[in-house]
Structures are given as C-alpha cells and as structure tokens.
C-alpha cells in the first residue's frame, strides 16, 4: 500500500508542476491571446479561399492582401493567379518565395486587369507572360522562360529588383509613367527592357537579349550596364536623357533614331557601332568609345549637336580643353 501511495503522490506532484499559477492576475477578466488571424491576417491563396475557374488555377475577386502557401502548378488553358476585377481597389500578392510553374499551353503566371502589387517570388515556364498587371508595384520577382514577356506593366508602375531571363518576348515591358530600378534582364527573345512612355530606368543590367537591351523614348536611362545585346544596347526613339551608361559588345551601342535626346557621358566598347545617330536634333556630348567597328556615325546633312570627336590612340595624352568632346580611345 505504501508503494501505491507513493506512486500516486509522485504522479500528482508531476501534474501540479506542469500547471500554471492558480491565482488570476489582477484587473478585469479579458483574453490575453492573439488569434491566428491576427498573426497572419492576409488571405492564403488556395482552392478554398480563391478557387479558380475555366481560365485560372486561382482567382482573386476581392480587394485585399494575399499570400502563397505553396508553389502553384499551371494547367493548360489557365492563368496561374488571375485577379479580376480589381477596379475597386488594389490587390497585394506576396508570393513568399514560392514559384508559379507554368506548363505547355498555360496562359500567364499572374494575370491582373487592375491595380495589383506582386512581391517576392518567381514565375517560370508559363505559355504567356510571367507577371502581367495593369498597374502596380512589382519587386523581388524572378520571371524566367515564359512564352511571352517576363513582366508586363501597362502603366504607372514601379519595378524594382526583378530578374527576367530567357523569356520568349521582352524581359520587362512597361508603359507610361513607370520606374524600373535595379533590375536584370538577360537572354530574352526580344528586348531586355521595353519602354512605352515617360519612364525612368536606372541601375539596371541588360545582357544578351536578342533585340535591344533597352528600347523606348521620352525617358531617362541612367547608370545601366548593357552587354552583348543583339540589335542595340540602347535604342532611343527621342525626348530622352541617356546618360552614364556602360555598354560592351553586341550590335549598336546607342542608336538614336528620334530627336531631342541628350546622350551624354556614356562609355561604349566592342560594339559594331558605338553611337549611331540616325535621327535629327539630338545632342551628343562627352561620350567615350573604343574598339567598336565604328565608334561614331552621324548621317551627313542632318543636323545634330555633337561635340567634336577627339581620337586618342593608345599611349596618347588627352590634351583637349573641350569639355563637350566625345572621345574615341
């Protein structure tokens, strides 16, 4: 009996030691917990919350903030995530590091007809566009090997720290009033970055794209690195500032086919033509070119404002006092 008593006492002690205090804290009784909804208030994208339809694996129909909990696998004839309609507000999607994987015959990875922000994830192998929005904030996206553009934003967007690689169309294609900063566009079947309107492009890299590295007009293109693009590293259609870019190899370095652009302080090497101005009324100053098939080409009889071109062979000494001179070296 003594052994039985001791065992029961021991068990009781163990239970008591695991319990919390029996004396309630002072003040009125109130819950102290947080609900899981408060911990993660956003809506998970899944078959229950965002069921798809005939042309989408998942479909978001309400304004709000959403996130992925897993990779999304594409299906033929469907978008991965479709946002429609979103005319009443903005939808935010956090991919949370997950990927949207397309399959043959699939449509767009993200297809949004309204204002949508998309962050932190990847879209690859879609039959159409990797991420397509009308307007929004796109950042930290990796869009690769899609059947059309990697990213397409129709207008009014900011695109930051994105990588577009191996897409069949343009790597990044943007419309009016858009900023593209810190992005990489590599090995795409069309152009690296396509601009359609007043845009600001800075500190981007465009590498080995089949057509142009960056193409567009009415924009500022500054401090970019462009390497081995097929047609032109920068194809400017006019009304732009093209400044401080570093360009190497490939087709034409800078093609100025429009008018009223200021092309200044760029460095171009190893291209078929360094700076090729085919338009009129541009100003070309302070650029440097070396080892291009032809460093500078300007059509005869067409007026552009061009700083004198100074040639300094290897071992030469730069002695000019013309601060606007273009230099081949």
């Amino acid at each position: 009996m003594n052994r039985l008593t001791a065992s029961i006492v021991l068990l009781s002690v163990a239970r008591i030691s695991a319990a919390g205090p029996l004396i309630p804290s002072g003040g009125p009784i109130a819950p102290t917990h947080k609900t899981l909804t408060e911990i993660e208030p956003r809506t998970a994208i899944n078959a229950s919350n965002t069921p798809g339809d005939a042309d989408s694996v998942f479909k978001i129909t309400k304004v709000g903030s959403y996130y992925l909990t897993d990779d999304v696998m594409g299906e033929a004839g469907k978008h991965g995530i479709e946002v429609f309609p979103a005319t009443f507000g903005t939808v935010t999607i956090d991919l949370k590091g997950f990927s949207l994987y397309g399959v043959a015959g699939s449509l767009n990875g993200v297809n949004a007809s309204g204002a949508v922000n998309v962050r932190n994830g990847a879209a690859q192998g879609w039959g159409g566009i990797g991420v397509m929005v009308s307007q929004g904030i796109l950042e930290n996206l990796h869009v690769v090997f899609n059947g059309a553009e990697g990213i397409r934003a129709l207008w009014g967007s900011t695109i930051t720290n994105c990588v577009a690689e191996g897409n069949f169309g343009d790597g990044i294609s943007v419309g009016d009033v858009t900023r593209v900063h810190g992005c990489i566009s590599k090995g795409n079947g069309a152009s690296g970055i396509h601009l359609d309107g007043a845009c600001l492009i800075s500190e981007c890299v465009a590498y080995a794209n089949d057509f142009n590295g960056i193409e567009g007009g009415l924009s500022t293109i500054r401090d970019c690195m462009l390497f081995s693009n097929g047609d032109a590293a920068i194809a400017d259609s006019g009304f732009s500032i093209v400044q401080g870019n570093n360009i190497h190899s490939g087709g034409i370095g800078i093609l100025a086919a429009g008018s009223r652009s200021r092309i200044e302080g760029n460095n171009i090497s190893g291209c078929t033509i360094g700076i090729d101005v085919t338009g009129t009324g541009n100003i070309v100053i302070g650029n440097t070119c070396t080892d291009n098939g032809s460093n500078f080409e300007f059509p005869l009889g067409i007026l552009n404002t061009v700083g004198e071109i100074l040639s300094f062979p290897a071992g030469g000494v730069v002695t000019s006092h013309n601060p606007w001179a273009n230099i081949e070296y």
Partner: protein
Amino acid sequence: MESRIRLNLEVAVFLAMIGGMARAGDLNPPAGPVAPTHKTLTEVEPRIAINATNTPGDADSVFRIALSGSYYLTSNVFGAAGKSGIEIGVDNVTIDLAGFSLIGAPGALDGISAPGRSDIAIRNGNVRSWPGDGIGLSSASQTVVEEVVARSNTGIGINTFSRSLVKDCICYANGGAGIVVGSVSTMTLCLCYNNGGPGISTGGTSTITQCVTRLNQAQGILAVGPATISGCTSATNTTHGIEVSSTCFVSGNECSNAGNGGTGANILATGGDNRIEGNNVTGGDFGIQVTGTGNLIVRNSSSGAGTANYSIAASNKDAQVLSPGSGFVSTDPWANFTY
C-alpha cells in the same frame, strides 16, 4: 484478493510511468535556470492589430490609435461619413497596412489622419476614394510614408508636413496634388500622374530625386522654397514641368512638353539663387524660363520649345547658349545648348 488488487494497481501505475517516460525527452535538464523554450503568439506578432477591440473609433474616425506603438491592418478598412479611416491621436506610431486598402465613402474625411502628431510611419498599402486626403498628415511632423499607392482621393494623395520622408509611392487621379511634403523633407522614387494639382509639391529645404510626374493638371514638380530636384522625369503636365522659386538646385532632369493644355515652361524659376544645371528640356512653350534674378543657368540643353528654348530675364548668370551643330568645338564648360 486484496493483495491481488493492490498488485494490479501497482503494475498499472508502473506501466503508466514507464509509458510516460518512453514518450518523454531527455530527463537531464539543460544547464542554467529553468525557462520556457516556446514563443508566444505575441512574440511571433508583437504588433497590435487595428480592429474595433484594440483601436475603437470615435465620432470622427473608424479606428483611432490612442497609444504609441506598432500597428498593422488585418483587413481592408471602409470609410464612413464624417470619419477618417484611421486617426492617429498620439505620437510615435507605425502602421503597416500589410497590403490592404483603405477605401473611402461619400462624406468621409481622410484615409489616415494624425492631427498635430509627430514621428508617424505608414507603409505598404493602398488608400483610395477618400473625400479628403488619402494620407492626411498635413499637420504631423517627422513622418515616413513608403510603398503606398494613393489614388482617386478628392484631396491630396499623400499630404505630409515638415521633416517627412516619402519613398516608393504612387499617386494618381487625385483631385489635388499627388504628393505634398513640407519643409526639410525627402522624396524619392515616386510616381505622380494625372492629379488635379501639381504632381509633387514641396515647401522647401527638401530633396526630390528620381521621381516621375506626368499629365498632372498643374506643375509636374513645384518647389516654393529651397530644394534639390535631380534625376526626375517630368512630362506633359498642364503648366510647368518643374517650377521653383528660390535657392533650388535643379539638375539632371528630363522635362518635356510642358504646357499641355495650358501654357508652361519645362523649367521655370521665379525667384533667385537657383542653380539650374545639366537638364534636358524639349518641346513645350518654353524650355527654360527664368523670370527671377540672380540665378545660375549652365550646361543645359533645350530643344523644340514653341516660344523660346531659353527665356532668361536680365540680371541672371546664364552661360552662353550654343547652337553649334555637328562636330562642334567649344572650350566653355558651362555652355547651354539649343539644338
């Protein structure tokens, strides 16, 4: 019989203890004082959710923050007549909108307001369709607003006061200005278009860098006091691309087609002591127009203005304007160009 029952009980207790030990972990406790190893949900999300329990509204707010701290949204916020969406009634508050939207209603006030407060930060969300301002911090100081999209508000998209930082924001289709910052403020990497007032307006002693303004119903960028405006694109605004009063440094901007539907200069300086350098301006009524005195205008390029590429009042220090054509030689490092 009694001994048999006792034996069975002892065996049962022993087996229960053995079973419990088999499921248990190491019996040797780790060194140091006894302490829990779990995280509470409050440790996982220490911030305070904005809801009717934690931040109940009052007569003029749907939600009201009355204690300093870090807050976040857990759903969209819908406006009500006579109320702001979120009113901040205390200093030192951070709000993460968590990607959600504040959506106004007829007769409502501002999306977010913080009358007279300071040290306010608002991030990562959307405000639209408020009859007042989207972000109404016009009497709050030391504020941060970033990654906010403000659109279709009747007033100003993002309205801040002095000592503000506005970064990575998009403002469009607002009835007033897109973004207003007070003195001693910084704005960078913002887009403002199709607003009823200026795209960007600053009170002075501020920097505006790498922003894009377009199709606004007044100026693209307006600085009524000292400011640095650099690396911006301003196109097709109704009046001026960039308008400054005095003591501004305006450099490296691309401005085009000012006076779209009105009359305008791509860059207009109305006061003195401004340095206007290295900009490219095209189209519009005037390229660079200086009506004030005592300004320095150097190294700019201007083309295609309808009235004049340069219109500089007397008593300014403007470099010579060259129109030299192809292959030009000049030793003047400060020259302005028309082309």
